[in-house]
Structures are given as C-alpha cells and as structure tokens.
C-alpha cells in the first residue's frame, strides 16, 4: 500500500502543473459558458451564440479553415507523391522534409509580414505582375486582407504539415500491393483508385481534420495581417478578452467553448482516422 502511494507521489508535480495551468483554466471557461452572472445554470449563453455577428464569424472561420485544409492536403499530397514515387531525383526529399519542418513552425506575426511584403499593395509579386504582365491584381479585386488572402497565407504552414504527415504514409504503401495489382491486370489509375487511395483514405481524412483545427485556432497570423478588419472567431475572441466587445462576458465564454468544441471534434476525427490508418501500416 505504501508502495502505491510513493508511486503516485512521483507524478504529482506533473498533475499539479497540468491541473493548475491547463485543465482548471479550460474548465473555468467551459463552466462559465453555462452560467448566469449570479452563478446559476443556463443555456442562454449558448443560445446567444446564434446572433448574426457570431454566426458570421464562425462561418468565415470555418470557410477559411476548410479551404486552407483542402488546398493544403491537395498540394501537400502532390508534392509528397512527386518526391516519393514521381521520378523526381531522390536528393530532393531531404531538403523538402527539412524545409517542411521549418515552415510548419513559421506561423504567427512574421508570416503575416512575409505575405504583406510579397502580395500586399506594394509587395514584390504584386509589383512584378504589374510591371511584367500588366496585371494589377488589386484592380481585379484581390485583397490580402480577405478570405483568399488569409487562405493563401495559411497554406504556408498547412502544406508543409501535410507533407510531414503524409510522406511516411505514402512510403508505407507496400510494393507488393502494386505488383499484385499489376499481375492481376490493373492499370495505374485502377491501382490508385481501388487499392492505394482506399488505404490512404483514413490518413488523408485524418490529416485534413488536423489541418482544419490548425488553421481554426490560428490567432497571431490573422491578427497581424488584418488587425480586426476580418472578424474570424479567434480575432473576435481576442477583442472580447481585451475589451468585452460583445458587451456580455458570458457570451465570450460561450464563444471560447464553441471554439474548443470545433477544434476538439476535428482532433477527435484525426485520432480515429489515424488508428484506422495504422491498421495497414504494420
């Protein structure tokens, strides 16, 4: 009995840390979302989320996250597939993976600066397009501080994350499966459609969910890029914490709670899909 007590004592610091600085603060927000100002239970805060302003912010956030996750998956998959079995020289793989490791961590304020310097009104690419081809993207309606601008910027960390996760999965496709399919007379497209993609499907879907959560919770990049001109969920929550712009603290907790629900569901999808994907990778 004494032994068991000692065993638990060894991880007490960790549990104290996790409880004080991770679990309790989160619980506090979650509980606050279901409370009236005088402490009673209520669902009114959650119902309050149905105001047009908050619904709009969730809609645009979800749209940006879906678009950047989808494009990130497609482009990242294409690049990883090109390196793994596309006939591109093998020495390209190591630098691509190293670069992906760096770029997937290069989010936040500096990333916003990089895109302003590139695609802003006087950015390099904007100017070159104007000088070389006479194309003025801003006259054509492009704006960096918009849905597409933000999506394009987020791709800078989304694509590398996809490459990092999907490359091992692609390398896990066994040569025997392809050979078996070829022996049975399958064409390349049939092999992909009926063998490779169904095997990869859980990995793809799981990574998609992870990328979705990744961009949904991104605050710094969006804030440095747009200030508060584009009210996506994290920006609105940021303004709410700073100055109670919703004029109801409990509505703020409800919003934070809804944010946890979205990222939580996306991560749950990732975990479930990854367990499925691993069945094939043994």
């Amino acid at each position, binding site marked *: 009995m004494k032994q068991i007590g000692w065993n*638990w004592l*060894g*991880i007490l*610091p*960790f549990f104290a*840390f996790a409880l*004080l*600085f*991770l*679990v309790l*603060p*989160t619980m*506090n*927000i979650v509980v606050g979302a279901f409370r009236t100002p005088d402490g009673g239970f209520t669902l009114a805060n959650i119902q309050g989320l149905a105001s047009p302003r908050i619904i709009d912010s969730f809609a645009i956030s979800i749209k940006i996250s879906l678009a950047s996750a989808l494009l990130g998956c497609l*482009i990242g998959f*294409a*690049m990883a*597939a*090109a*390196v793994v079995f*596309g*006939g*591109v020289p093998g020495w390209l793989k190591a630098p691509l993976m190293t*670069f992906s*490791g*760096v*770029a997937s*961590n290069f989010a936040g*304020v*500096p*990333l*916003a*600066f*990089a*895109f*302003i*310097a*590139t*695609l802003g009104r006087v*950015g*390099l690419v904007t100017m070159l397009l104007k000088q070389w081809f006479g194309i003025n993207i801003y006259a054509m309606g492009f704006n960096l501080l918009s849905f597409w601008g933000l999506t394009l910027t987020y*791709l*800078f960390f989304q*694509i590398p994350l996809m490459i990092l996760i999907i490359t091992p999965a692609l390398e896990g496709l066994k040569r025997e499966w392809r050979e078996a399919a070829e022996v049975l007379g399958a064409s390349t497209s049939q092999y992909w459609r009926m063998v490779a993609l169904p095997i990869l499907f859980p990995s793809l879907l799981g990574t998609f969910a992870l990328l979705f959560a990744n961009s*949904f*919770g991104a*605050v*710094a990049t969006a*804030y*440095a890029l747009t*200030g508060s001109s584009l009210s996506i969920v994290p920006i609105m*929550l*940021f303004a709410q*914490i*700073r100055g109670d712009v919703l004029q109801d603290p409990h509505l703020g907790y409800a919003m*934070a709670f809804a*944010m*946890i629900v979205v*990222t939580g569901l996306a*991560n749950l999808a990732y975990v479930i899909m990854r367990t499925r994907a691993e069945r094939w990778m043994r």
Partner: protein
Amino acid sequence: MKRFWSWAAIIFGGLYFLLPLIGTIEFSLRMRRGEYTLDAYRSVLNDAAFRQTFSYSVIMALATIVLGVLIVVPTAYWVRLRLPRLRPVIEFITLLPLVIPAIVVVFGYIRLYNTSSILPLTGTASGTNLLLLFGYATLALPYMYRAVDTGLSTLDVRSLTEAAQSLGAGWVRIIGRLILPNVLGAVMSGAFLSFAIVIGEFTMAALLNRPAFGPYMQLLGANRAYEPAALAVIAFAVTWGCMGIMQLISRLFGVRRTAK
C-alpha cells in the same frame, strides 16, 4: 508524363514557398528609395524596444525549456518505470495543448488568476511573468514530452535504475546524472522546438500584457512599412537556426544509437 506532373508539383510548390521569402528579403532592403540598403535592419537593431523585447523573450524561452525539462523528464521516466498503465492518460494530457487553442487557455488564466482570486498572479508583473512562463510550458509540453518519451524508449530504464540503485544512488542522482544525460539528444531537440515556438509567441503575451517579442513585432507591423519585413527575416533566421540545429542533433544522436 508522370515525371512531368511531378516536376510541375515540385516547381509550383517551390515557387509558392520561395516567393514570400524572396519578397520579404527584397522588401526589407527597399527602405531607401532607389537603392538596396540595410537601413531597415539598422533601424530595427537600434530600436531599444527591439532589444528589450527580444531579450525578454529569449529569457522566457530559456526558462520555459528549464521548466519543461524539470516537469517532463522525471514524469516520463517515472511513468515508464513505475506506472506504465498510466501512460495513455499522461500522453492524452500532454496532447491537450494541441487541441485547446492557446487563446482559450490564456482566457482561463485571466479569469482564474485575476486580482480578486485566491492566487492573484496577474496582480503583479513578476506574477504575470510566472503565469506566462507556465503558459509557455503548456505550449511546449506536447513537443517536449514526445521527444523525451521517444528518447526514453531507446533505453532499458528498469535495468539502468536497478544498477544505479545497487550502487547506492538516490532518485535525484538517478534522474540528474543517469537518465538526463542519456536522453540529452531528445531533450535538446524538444528544447530547440520550444525555443522556436516561444520566441515569437503572440497571443498569450499580448493578452497578459507582457513586453514580449511577438506583441512588439505586431505593433511595429501596424505602424511601420519596411522594418516588419526585416523583423520577419530575422524571425525566420531564428526559426531556421533552431530547427536546423534540432535536426542536426537528432541526426547525430540517431547515428550514434545505430552505431552502438
């Protein structure tokens, strides 16, 4: 045909990643009209606020690494040695910071540790620094824990511990002189990743009102034209440096492991 599409994907992707980097460098040199100069860098480096916030964040990053090591190494070791059944629980907790957005966690801090609470950390500057430090430690937790746990998996923790105990070593000595040196490579790679994350972190520092590098960059970005590009280049160099060293370390230690 397949090769053509492969090259197309690589070149298209490569352009997408290279253009912003080139664009940022070019923009950062454009401060003086008509010629390329390092004026923007000079202006940034001569700014007292840059030096103050940058050193603040460096100190915070180093403190985060120390705190992270102190929390993670004994825990991961102890769980492997004595409580293997708890491993999934611990792993789940360490992954929570990836699920709960940092902005929600810091929102909770502000409510839980405000001046009218039992533990009024946000009441004083040093208390808020401490709170931010713990916040950063939660951000680093997933990376630190995974790195250290992977490092431990290459050791026979039980035999090492029994050998040390039979020679009369106590727990502090076992963890400090035996386990830590053996997982140093893993700890270092976790440490550099934590450094890269903390040095430019914006959300927590901004909402806790601390003079860190992330909020400074944001403020400069809202008020200046060319200096932000110079800052982005500096920040990218720091990230690149951290990740490069990390990969180098894991490669070096990886080689040594297989050579054994």
